[in-house]
């Protein structure tokens, strides 16, 4: 529209600024997380991890190995395939994808040059990864339980591991979110941690049970099931597990927020 000569154009409206809304900022952070995280490759990997214990259950069930007491089978699969493998790897993928990608291409700048508190950004990212991990792990746990025992849940083992995997997902998500902010190779570092620390060392050396998320998950499952299994009984106490996970979550948010105040980014200019 042309202006009439001599008449000043109306001054454009200005943005009205306030404190970012908790809900709206969380929604924006989750939106940014989803577009950076849920790529087809990652989704396919997650599907593979989720169906792996179910495939084991199908194979065992089809051969009639589960006709007796399915609890030892379930405890072993839940421990080895869910607590030590599917849950940490899913948490690793969901926790590191967004921050790592943003750090690598410099788009983290668009997140940190805002008035949203940094601790809130990290917290929302942890919750996003935690919820995703818990949901995917729950599908793996309940799917496997369904195949092995039908709707019957002997000694509440499936329910116990369903809750334990949500708990473990929170701990893993906190740990890996912090890792994504601290290191340039978060995915590789996280995989090494999962394979060697959680997969080999924590189950080999009893002293490491106190600092293993996998063992904390077993402790939570042990507290919620009536089953008696040496795998479950050997873990640390429930208190140690809850305190350990809580400390990791707080550390991730506090240290992650500090890290975001001067974020590690690849070069964003020349």
């Amino acid at each position, binding site marked *: 529209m042309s202006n009439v000569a001599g008449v000043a154009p109306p001054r454009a409206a200005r943005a009205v600024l306030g404190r970012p809304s908790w809900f709206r900022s969380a929604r924006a952070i989750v939106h*940014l997380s989803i577009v950076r995280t849920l790529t087809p490759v990652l989704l396919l990997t997650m599907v593979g991890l989720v169906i792996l214990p179910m495939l084991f259950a199908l194979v065992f069930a089809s051969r009639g190995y589960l006709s007796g007491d399915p609890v030892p089978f379930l405890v072993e699969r839940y421990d080895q395939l869910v607590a030590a493998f599917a849950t940490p790897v899913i948490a690793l993928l969901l926790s590191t994808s967004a921050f790592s990608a943003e750090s690598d291409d410099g788009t983290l*700048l*668009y997140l940190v*040059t805002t*008035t949203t508190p940094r601790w809130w950004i990290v917290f929302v990212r942890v919750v996003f990864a935690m919820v995703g991990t818990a949901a995917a792990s729950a599908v793996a746990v309940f799917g496997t339980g369904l195949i092995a025992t039908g709707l019957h849940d002997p000694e509440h083992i499936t329910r116990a591991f369903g809750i334990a995997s949500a708990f473990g997902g929170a701990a893993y998500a906190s740990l890996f979110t912090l890792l994504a902010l601290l290191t340039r190779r978060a995915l590789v570092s996280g995989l090494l941690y999962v394979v060697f620390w959680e997969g080999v060392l924590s189950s080999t050396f009893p002293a490491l049970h106190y600092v293993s998320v996998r063992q904390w998950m077993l402790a939570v499952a042990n507290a919620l099931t009536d089953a008696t299994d040496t795998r479950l009984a050997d873990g640390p106490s429930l208190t140690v597990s809850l305190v350990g996970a809580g400390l990791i979550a707080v550390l991730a948010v506090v240290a992650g927020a500090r890290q975001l*105040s001067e974020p590690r980014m690849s070069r*964003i*200019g*020349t």
Partner: protein
Amino acid sequence: MTSSPGTSTSTSTSTSTSTSTSTSTSTSTSTSTSTSTSTSTSTSTSTNTSAAPATDVPLVFDRVSHWYGDVVAVNDISCTVTAGITGLLGPNGAGKSTLLQLAAGVLSPSNGAVRVFGESPVDRPDVYRQVALVPEREALPGMMKARAFVAARAELLGVRNASEAVTRALTIVEMDTVADRRIDTFSKGMKQRVKLAAALVHDPSLVLLDEPFNGLDPRQRLHMMRLLEERVAEGTAVLLSSHILEEIANVASNILVVLAGRLAATGDYRTLRRLMTDRPHTVRLRSSADRLLAAALMQESSVLGVEVDNSGVIVRATDYSALSLAIAPVAQRIGCTLYEVQVTDESLEHVFAYLVAR
């Protein structure tokens, strides 16, 4: 290094601090020149590098250094960015992007202090109410739609009238009609404009732009320059790094030249050129009697040499002021008519080339 929002050039590594406009060179001749020039330029540029933070000054670098490991990226830079467009020039690796990141609080200085509206921007998210940084890299979340991306920024910045602000920001960068397309379908220039919309969505008072003209076609560049000038008219301070000197020359009222992490010069580039007394000034003249004029000008003490070719007389002089005062009387004395007097090496490109070549 001279701390100087005013016009200055510096070729020394002096650690003294001065708030006056000056030229620091090793010769007494140039020192006297700088002294005389400083009087004329200091009135046109603001000077504020005092220790007390001024809350109305958009950006102050106070003896700022930053190093990455053993590499010094920014070395003892002091200057002030006031309202208007300030061009940040320097070759690749000079430290321009580091300087912009320091200004945005994304990096903290290894030494010295950065103040944005009187306060340090480091670890202070509230500063982003007033500051926006547009990085050089074109990376954006490609799976998002442009409108959703700008809206996410608005929400994270606490813009109350977010929907209206997003539409306005997208409209001023002429992206409103394609804002519902995914970003990865955009050209480089379109991504550049989305970045700008995301930066302007909350109407910041200080805009830091790192190579904003990259990928833009000439019409879009003109549009962006006009847009920046409109923001400046509303009181916004813009610090703009660019390799495209012509654009900087067109829009920037002030320039900062960074070389190897140091502030080599700051001020109006034409004034800077005149301060470069070690570089002869070149003036092209066309007249009714070129050879006669060339011979007469050679008598002037400020003239180093003359050259006559098809385009006229090329005069090289040490003292620009003396030459400009001498041309007309000389022409009058020998009875020739001057058709054209043109300074040929006073463009920003020449100034930049001279500074880089030092």
